[in-house]
């Protein structure tokens, strides 16, 4: 989903160990907007 928004260098880096429930995990993501904008990002319909 993050890539679909147009981001590049998308990375799920690690778990944080802070989990809000038995079926969820705390995680860290990072991503970058490309230096040159492209037309790849999803257009959000209103």
């Amino acid at each position, binding site marked *: 989903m993050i890539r679909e*928004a147009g981001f590049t260098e998308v990375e*799920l880096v690690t778990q944080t160990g*802070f989990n809000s429930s038995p079926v969820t*995990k705390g*995680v860290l993501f*990072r991503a*970058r907007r490309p230096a040159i904008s492209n037309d790849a990002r999803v257009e*959000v319909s209103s």
Partner: protein
Amino acid sequence: MDGAINKVRMNAVENLFTGEDRKRIREGIAAKYRKVAVSPEGSFKYPVGLAGLEGQNYDRGILRALPEEVPASYCGVGNPFSLGPVRKGEAVLDIGCGAGVDTIVAAVMTGPEGRVIGMDLTPEMLERARENLKKVSLENVTLQEGSAEDLPFPDASFDVVISNGVFNLVPDKARALSEVFRVLKPNGRFMLADQVLTAEQPADTGSVVENWAR
């Protein structure tokens, strides 16, 4: 990466939400965070306050310089600043700033030449953030109400967008991510700490909505 996270499930049953569902979700979030604004103790299954910050390895020098009431209000799920630097002079947006702890940390990092905006949906959390901001000598922070799904900023406004424990609460994550992309400058960085679902969502939207902010 732990094999237990084999899928990141976002935006599945959320596609089926009605307007009434979204209203109930907002009300559930508001009710929870009205309580959290007073104190996060007892509202989360992981450490909060200074113990949470130290558990996530926030910069000890910055933490030591803060009045104790500021770290006490932390209820994040990770440390977005562990993902990369906030450089001097940069413009930073903190989406879902809550009581403003990450906003204040970002403001220290970016320095007086930079600027940080903390944005939250919950008026009570913003009020707590304003109280925390009064306790520190920072002139480069503004706080405002707003929604991740409709960011009130022009295109290409920020060098960095951070968020901590918020996107899991946003009903339309695709829209919110598109908004983050829009307000970042080209080459801008998105640093996100959040909760991901590691099991199947219940099939009925009622159950999902009921437990959204739990």
